[in-house]
C-alpha cells in the first residue's frame, strides 16, 4: 500500500512538474527543438532543474543498502551501448520532433487536452506493441 502511494505521489509530482514547466505544451517542446525558428530554451531549464535533485539522489543511493520501501534496488546496467540503443533513440527523437511530445507529457495531457493526447498515447502504445511483437 505504501509502495502504491509512493508511486502515485511520484507520478503526480512528475505530472505536475511537466504541466507547470510548460513541457505539456507540444509547441513549446517543438520550439526547443526548432533551432532555425523562434528558439525556446525552456526545456533546457527543465532538464537542468530535474537533474539537480536526481544527482543528489544518486549520491544518497550509493550510501544506502536498500530503498526505503523496498527490499532492494532494481536498477538497469549503464554500460552496454549497442545498435538498438542508437536506432531506438534516433527513432524516438524523430517522433518527439514530429509531435512535440514524449511519453510523460503525452500521458499528462490526457487530463488537459484529452483528444489529441489520446491519439498520441494510443499510437505510442501501438508502437510499443509493434516492438514487442517484432522483437
Amino acid at each position, binding site marked *: 500500500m505504501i509502495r502504491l502511494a509512493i508511486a502515485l505521489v511520484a507520478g503526480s509530482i512528475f*505530472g505536475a*512538474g511537466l504541466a507547470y514547466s510548460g513541457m505539456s505544451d507540444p509547441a513549446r517542446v517543438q520550439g526547443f527543438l526548432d533551432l532555425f525558428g523562434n528558439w525556446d530554451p*525552456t526545456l533546457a*531549464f527543465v532538464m537542468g532543474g530535474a537533474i539537480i*535533485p536526481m544527482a543528489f*539522489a544518486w549520491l544518497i543511493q550509493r550510501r544506502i543498502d536498500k530503498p*526505503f520501501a523496498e527490499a532492494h534496488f532494481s536498477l538497469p546496467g549503464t554500460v552496454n551501448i549497442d545498435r538498438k540503443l542508437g536506432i531506438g533513440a534516433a527513432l524516438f527523437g524523430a517522433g518527439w520532433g514530429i509531435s512535440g511530445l514524449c511519453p510523460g507529457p503525452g500521458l499528462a495531457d490526457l487530463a488537459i*487536452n484529452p483528444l489529441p493526447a489520446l491519439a498520441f498515447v494510443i499510437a505510442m502504445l501501438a508502437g510499443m506493441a509493434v516492438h514487442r511483437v517484432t522483437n
Partner: protein
Amino acid sequence: MLAAFPHAMPVEGLIGGLMIGIAAALMLLGLGRIAGVSGLAARATGIADSGAPRRIAIAFVIGLPLGAFLVSLATGGVVTRFPPSVIPMILGGLLVGFGTRLGSGCTSGHGVCGMSRLSRRSLTATAIFMASGFITVALMRFGGLL
C-alpha cells in the same frame, strides 16, 4: 541573454524541472526504481512483461495526468498548443513508442535519471534523441511543415 527569448519560461521551467527531479528521486530512494515513463507505461499496459510490479507502474502512470490536472486547477489552466492535424500525433506516437522500447528509455529514464547518474548508455541515448529531434524539426521547418 534570456531577453533574446521573451517567450521562454526559465523560472517555471526550473521549478517544474525540480518537481520532476524530486519525483524521480522519490521513485529511486523510495522504491529503488528508475522513473522512466516509457518503461512504466509499457509495464502498466502489460506490453512489457518485465520491469516494475504492474500495480506500481499503473499508480505512477495514473499520477501523471492527475498531477497535470491539479496544476491546471491551481493555475487556472495549462496551455497546450497541439498541431491542427492528428497525423503528427499518430506518426510521432508510433515512433516514440517503438523507439523508446528499442532504445530502452525516453527523456525521463535516459535524460533525467540516466544523465544524472552519468550513465554512458543514457548520455549516448540522450545525445542521439536530442540530435534526431533537432534534425527532424529542422527538416520540418525547411519542408514547410511548421
